[in-house]
C-alpha cells in the first residue's frame, strides 16, 4: 500500500489553489451531481461542500448500491436467511437495511446463519467448508464489483462448488443516468462520474448519454483533489457553455476501460430490467445470470419470485437519489429515521446520502 502517493492527493496547498480557481471562474448557480456513494462519502468527509462557493450545490446520485436496492430484494434475502439449509453471506452494509418485515441483522439476532464477508471469495470458501449447506451470496454491486462476482461464479463452476449460489441485485450505472435525465423536474448542470466504475466500463460507456443530453461530465477519483479538480472542470464547461466528457482520472481509467473484466462479466451475466429504489423499473439496468449459470442462481434454485413491494411510507430516498430533495428535507430525517433506526437504505449504508448527511452535518 503506497500511502505517500495517496497523501499527495490530499495536499492542502494544491486543494486551496483549486478552490481559489473554482471561486474565480464560477459566476452562476450550478447543480452538480456526484453519481457515486464513494464520492458522497469523500465529499462529506473532507468537508468539500464547506470550501465551495454557495452557488455550487452538490447532489448525491443513485450510485450507492445499497441505497438503490429494491425492498423486494431485501425481502428475498430475508427469506433466504430464514431457511435452515442456507448460510447467507453478505457485505456488511446490507445487514441493517430494513425490508418489508425484517432485516438481515434482525434475522441474524434471531439465530439465522448470516455471515458478513469482505469478498465473495470468502463466501466461496464457506461453501467449500460446508458442503451440506447451501451458501448464498447477496450480490449487490455496480460495474466495480460485478466482474469479481462473475469471477467467483466461474470458479464455482470449474471447481464444482454446487452448493454455492448468488442472488443478484447487481446494477449498471449508465442506464440509471439515462433514466435520471428523462425524469421530469431533474435539473443537473454536470455529472461527477465514478472513477472506479469507469476503470471497468471506460469512458466510452458514458458517451451515449453525453451525446444525447450534452451534459458536462467528468470522470474522477476519490481523493479531495480529484473531486475539486472535477468541480473546476464542470464549472469551466458551464461557463464556456461547451460541454465535454472528460477523463480526469487518467492514472486509473483508460478510455476503453478494462475489456477483460467486461468479457468475464458478459460471459456470466446478461442485462435485464431492474427495479431501483424510489426510481422504479429501468430497462437493461440489471445484471442477472445467463441461462448456462442457472444452477448458481439462488432465485432459480429456491424458486423465489418476489412481487414488487411498497417502499417505506414517507421515505424520500428515491427523490434524494435523483437530486430532487436534500436528506434534511425528508420529513422522517432525524426524527423517525436515524442510523440507529434507519427507515430507508440511504440512512444505512455509510455511503448513503442520508447517513453521510447525518454523520457529517450534525
Amino acid at each position, binding site marked *: 500500500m503506497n*500511502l505517500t502517493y495517496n497523501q499527495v492527493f490530499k495536499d492542502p496547498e494544491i486543494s486551496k489553489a483549486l478552490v481559489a480557481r473554482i471561486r474565480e471562474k464560477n459566476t452562476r448557480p450550478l447543480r452538480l451531481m456526484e453519481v457515486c456513494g464513494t464520492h458522497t462519502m469523500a465529499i462529506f*468527509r473532507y468537508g468539500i461542500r464547506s470550501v465551495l462557493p454557495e452557488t455550487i450545490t452538490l447532489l448525491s446520485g443513485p450510485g450507492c448500491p445499497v441505497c438503490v436496492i429494491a425492498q423486494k430484494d431485501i425481502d428475498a434475502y430475508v427469506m433466504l436467511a430464514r431457511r435452515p439449509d442456507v448460510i447467507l453471506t453478505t*457485505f456488511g*452494509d446490507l445487514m*441493517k437495511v430494513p425490508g418489508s418485515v425484517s432485516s438481515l441483522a434482525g434475522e441474524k439476532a434471531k439465530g439465522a446463519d448470516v455471515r458478513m464477508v469482505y469478498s465473495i471469495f470468502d463466501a466461496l470458501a464457506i461453501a467449500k467448508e460446508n458442503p451440506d449447506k447451501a451458501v448464498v451470496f447477496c450480490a449487490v454491486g455496480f460495474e466495480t464489483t460485478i466482474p469479481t462476482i462473475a469471477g467467483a461464479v466461474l470458479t464455482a463452476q470449474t471447481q464444482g462448488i454446487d452448493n454455492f449460489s448468488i442472488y443478484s441485485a447487481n446494477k449498471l450505472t449508465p442506464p440509471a443516468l439515462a433514466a435520471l435525465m428523462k425524469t421530469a423536474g431533474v435539473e443537473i448542470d454536470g455529472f461527477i462520474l465514478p472513477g472506479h466504475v469507469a476503470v471497468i466500463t471506460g469512458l466510452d460507456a458514458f458517451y451515449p448519454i453525453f451525446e444525447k443530453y450534452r451534459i458536462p461530465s467528468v470522470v474522477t477519483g476519490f481523493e*479531495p483533489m480529484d473531486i*475539486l479538480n472535477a468541480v473546476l472542470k464542470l464549472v469551466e464547461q458551464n461557463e464556456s457553455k461547451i460541454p465535454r466528457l472528460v477523463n480526469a482520472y487518467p492514472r486509473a481509467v483508460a478510455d476503453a476501460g478494462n475489456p477483460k473484466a467486461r468479457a468475464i462479466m458478459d460471459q456470466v451475466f446478461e442485462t435485464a430490467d431492474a427495479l431501483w429504489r424510489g426510481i422504479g423499473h429501468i430497462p437493461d439496468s440489471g445484471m442477472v445470470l445467463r441461462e448456462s449459470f442457472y444452477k448458481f442462481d439462488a432465485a432459480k434454485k429456491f424458486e423465489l419470485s418476489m412481487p414488487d413491494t411498497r417502499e417505506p411510507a414517507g421515505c424520500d430516498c428515491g427523490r434524494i437519489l435523483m437530486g430532487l430533495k436534500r436528506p434534511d428535507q425528508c420529513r422522517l430525517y432525524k426524527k423517525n429515521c436515524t442510523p440507529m433506526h434507519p427507515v430507508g437504505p440511504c440512512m444505512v449504508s455509510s455511503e448513503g446520502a442520508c447517513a453521510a448527511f447525518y454523520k457529517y*452535518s450534525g
Partner: protein
Amino acid sequence: MNKKDTILLDHGAGGKVSHAMFSELILPLFDNELLAKQNDGAVFEVPPGRMAFSTDSYTVDPLFFPGGDIGELAVNGTVNDVAMCGAIPLYISVGLIIEEGMQVVDLKRILQSMARAAQKADVRIVTGDTKVVPRGKVDKIFINTSGIGSIPTGVHVSGDGAQPGDKVIVSGTIADHGVTILSEREGLKFDSDVKSDSAPLNHMVKGMLESGYPVHVLRDPTRGGLGTTLNEIAGQSTVGIRLFEDRLPVRGPVRGICELLGFDPLYLANEGKLIAIVPGADADNVLDIIRRDAFGKDAVIIGEVTEQDPGRVVLETFIGGTRIVEMLTGEQLPRIC
C-alpha cells in the same frame, strides 16, 4: 493443575477443586499479602482525601491478539479508568467468568499477563472471584475488574471542566487497537505490523498531576474512539471542540486499512491513549511531560476548545474544509465497494 487440563464446572463450585485452582494457579501469580489472607474481601488502609472507584467488564474476541490479550486489557482498562479520574490507582479486584472446557494453558496465559500488567502499572490485585458456567453460556472467558485509587489534594479533573482557550492533547497514535481487533476478528490478513496499544497510563497521569499544571479533563478514548469521547466532553462542558485533521496521529498502516475498509479512525477504539484538556498557556509544558512517559512519545496537540458550536466537535479537514464529527451511532460496518 495440569497444563493439558481443561476447566470444568467443578473449578468454580467452591469446593476442593476451586481451592486448588486458587492456590496453585491464581495466588502464586497475583502474589501479595492481602490476597494471601484469603478473606472474603481485602482490608487496607486508605490515604486521607478523596478516592476514585471504577469498574469495567471485558469480553473481547479473539482473546489473544497482536499487542495484548484480554487479561492485559482488563487490568490496563480499569487502571486507566481510575487514572482518568485524576487518581493514583492502588487496588484492583478481578472477577472471572469462565466457560466450561476452556484450556488451562489459555487461562494461565491470561492470568500471567494480568499479573504482569498489574506489576507494570504498580497496582495490586487484592480480591477476586471465579465462576465456571456451562458451555455456550459465555464466550470462553469474561473478566470484570474494579479498581480503587486515591486523588491527590487539589486535583479536580472532570469531563465538564473544558474551557474555551484550552488545548486538546492526545498521548499518541489513534485507532491501533480497533484496527487490530477488527482485522483479527474478520480474519483479514494484512501484511502490516498493526498491534493493540494496550498500556497503563497511570504513570503518565501521575507525572502530569505532580507537575502542578492544571489539567481540566482527562479521558481515555476506548470504545467509540476519539470522536465519541470528545463529543461527550463537548456535551458535558458545553463547549465546542475544534480538531485539525492534519495533526491527528494515525500510523500509516492503520490509515491504510481504514481507507480500504471504509472505517474512520476517529471512531476506532484505543486502549493505551488519553486525551488531556489543559489551559492553552500550559499546553506545551504538559505535552513535554506526556512525551517523557514511555507510552506518550507520539503525543501531540490536536485541537482547541472554543466558545462557538457548544456541544459539538468540528474537524478542520486536510483541505481546509470543515465537518461535524458526530458521536458514533451503532457499529461501523464494512462498506460494500
